[in-house]
């Protein structure tokens, strides 16, 4: 199987380039990550990438695969069109090869205060939540912060410093709908700005590429409705089938 992989080592290369690799698939090669690791071990051990859990839980190995962001560890390799073009996440600063700098992404994530805010005296054991209220977190708590969505969002490309981005906004929604949180109005107020939420043009790349089948665009829509006080009681966000990368 043929691969074309983005290479860049700032200490050696003047410019990034695409390097061709060819490797015969073994019956044990199921996911793209398996093959990338074999290429690295057998052909070029300077090939650099992040990975950890190898099962779509940690979100480390998000890369751009044939033009679409996804997790290498859960992308079936045999379905990919050849040569398989692998690039680092679009618009993120490249550190080396497929490894990108996530600083700005995390800054935006922190800016929505991703934790419960509740100044009421803590109960003896825990802050309870009804099963119905808990259900409202479905479809937003599952985010693994792999940055597939934000890196594929044109609004984030143009204003990465001012637009929170789909991942951050999905997390903002997760805390806005949490019945235990007491800062809902402040959170909505913070996002009601021409840039922080309203750079979203409803392009929906975020939802299309999310490897967990989440819908940041739906969360953004619900935040807008809550700001408009058109707030009817909904359950959690529905998960969708993840379109396979070809």
């Amino acid at each position, binding site marked *: 199987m043929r691969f074309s992989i983005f290479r860049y080592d700032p200490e050696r290369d003047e410019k990034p380039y695409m390097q061709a690799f060819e490797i015969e698939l073994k019956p044990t090669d199921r996911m793209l990550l398996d093959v990338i690791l074999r290429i690295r071990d057998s052909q070029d051990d300077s090939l650099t990438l992040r990975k950890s859990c190898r099962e779509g839980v940690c979100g480390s190995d998000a890369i751009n695969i044939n033009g679409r962001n996804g997790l290498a560890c859960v992308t079936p390799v045999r379905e990919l069109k050849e040569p398989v073009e692998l690039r680092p996440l679009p618009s993120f600063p490249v550190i080396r090869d497929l490894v990108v700098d996530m600083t700005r992404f995390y800054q935006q994530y922190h800016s929505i205060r991703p934790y419960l805010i509740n100044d009421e005296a803590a109960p003896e054991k825990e802050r309870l939540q009804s099963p119905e209220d808990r259900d409202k977190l479905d479809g937003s708590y599952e985010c693994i912060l792999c940055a597939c969505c934000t890196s594929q969002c044109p609004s984030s490309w*143009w*204003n990465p410093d001012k637009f929170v981005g789909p991942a951050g906004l999905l997390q903002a929604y997760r805390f806005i709908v949490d019945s235990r949180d007491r800062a809902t109005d402040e959170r909505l107020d913070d996002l*009601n*700005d*021409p840039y*922080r*939420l*309203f750079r979203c043009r409803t392009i929906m790349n975020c939802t299309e590429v999310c490897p967990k089948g989440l819908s940041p665009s739906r969360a953004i829509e619900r935040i*807008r409705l809550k700001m408009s006080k058109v707030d009817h009681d909904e359950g959690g966000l529905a998960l969708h089938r993840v379109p396979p990368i070809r």
Partner: protein
Amino acid sequence: MNRKHTGLRAWLVQRVSAVYMFLFIAFFLIHLVVAAPQQYAAWHAWITSAAMSIATSVFFAALLAHAWVGLRDVLMDYVHAATARVALLGLVGFGLTAAGVWVVRILWMRHG
């Protein structure tokens, strides 16, 4: 202008104006198909009736507001140098205001 809190307002203006424009254009076209004015006098009477004058004025107000939000969004997306953005926003604002004045002249200051 207070930059804070203009996010939702602009977004609502764009949505509401879009709905109004859609309804107005649909009504306008259906009217032309179902009850097309046969000569100039009938057309003139229809278009200058109080209800139509108001509805048309609201249509152009919606159009200009819609265009303002849309162009403002484009400039905010792509023009990152603050001075250039402010200058271009001013230019767009001036152009749209001029178009608005022109619309008022045509709709309300006509002769005959």
